[in-house]
């Protein structure tokens, strides 16, 4: 068998395997799979926020200002760590909006970005008494659930 035929056989087998997987398991999972058992103590799954808490939380967007304006959660407060921003303005705005005792849920881009945890620590340091969480999966989880502004 020459090299072209061999390559064709390998590609055909790979394609057949991929097709079978798609047929048996369905399309690839594009959402964020959140396992409540494996969460860190300060993290929360989107399912819990939208289900058990009925979405009644103060959302805090820890991404850059442009992202928050373009496709953040409707009504989310902005608090990122960019050097051009004024931290005291963020503090005052979030403090004001925490007065009704809502839980606070902070998100950044995805489950790997650490900014949301750092912002959550800063919100906790305000000692307001509100519970503060980091959203597992971040904005990627919100977008997969079509909850961000650009889906409204």
């Amino acid at each position: 068998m020459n090299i072209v035929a061999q390559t064709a056989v390998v590609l055909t087998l790979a394609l057949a395997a991929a097709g079978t997987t798609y047929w048996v398991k369905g399309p690839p999972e594009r959402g964020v799979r959140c396992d409540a058992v494996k969460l860190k103590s300060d993290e929360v799954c989107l399912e819990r926020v939208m289900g058990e808490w009925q979405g009644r939380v103060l959302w805090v967007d820890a991404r850059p200002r442009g992202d928050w304006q373009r496709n953040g959660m409707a009504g989310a407060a902005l608090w990122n760590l960019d050097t051009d921003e004024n931290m005291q303005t963020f503090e005052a705005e979030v403090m004001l909006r925490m007065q009704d005792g809502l839980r606070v849920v902070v998100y950044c881009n995805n489950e790997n970005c650490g900014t949301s945890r750092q912002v959550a620590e800063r919100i906790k340091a305000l000692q307001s008494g509100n519970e503060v969480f980091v959203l597992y999966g971040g904005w990627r989880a919100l977008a997969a659930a079509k909850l961000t502004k650009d889906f409204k």
Partner: protein
Amino acid sequence: MRTAIYSWLAMAGFLHAAALTFEKELLVIDAPADASSIVADFSFENKTGKPVTIAKVDKTCACIDAQVSDGKLVYAPGEKGQIRATFDMKNFAGVVNKTVALYLDDDPPNQPSVTLTVEVHIPVLVVLKEKTLKWSVGAKPETQTIDITMDYAKPIKIVSNSCTSDNFKVEVKTLEEGKHYELQVTPSETKDPGLAIIRIETDCDVKRHQILQAFAVIRRDLPPLP
């Protein structure tokens, strides 16, 4: 057929062996109190037998800048290089961890070959023990205090303070000039919910410790959340 499979397996192994070896992937830096930025240099060497290409250096914050030495992206076997991370500390104090993700040319998205971390210890020169003072609606309008200590070689004085609400009286009590103060906050009444922002100005020569903020809150006891 065997030739094709062996070639594919050999290629797969070769691709995944490509990597750069770093002397340290975590650098811990004690920043001087008056520094506005710090630089962390991560040295590496290509210890593999083939050239390695840096595809992308990804920052996790606008506060950090990362550059490969001389902008060089392809490293031959045995060749050494450096990644310089510059961290702007303007909005930070205390212990801060910042990361830089290094993607090589065969890395899948979101799976960098190396994640470099710079841990910066930034001195906190003015320490507010309490950030928020709280009263319940209808409670006795008693005075509460915020303890303020200065942790710096030079004395730091409180030069002024302001409050956004007329309902709160704010007074500074000096316990040790330049070292230790107490901010005494008294509401005139607590019958309605309210929030006041208290700003404290110091004469500290480090800009990020010149204006500090605290809060005074009168709020209703809330029913338990679902």
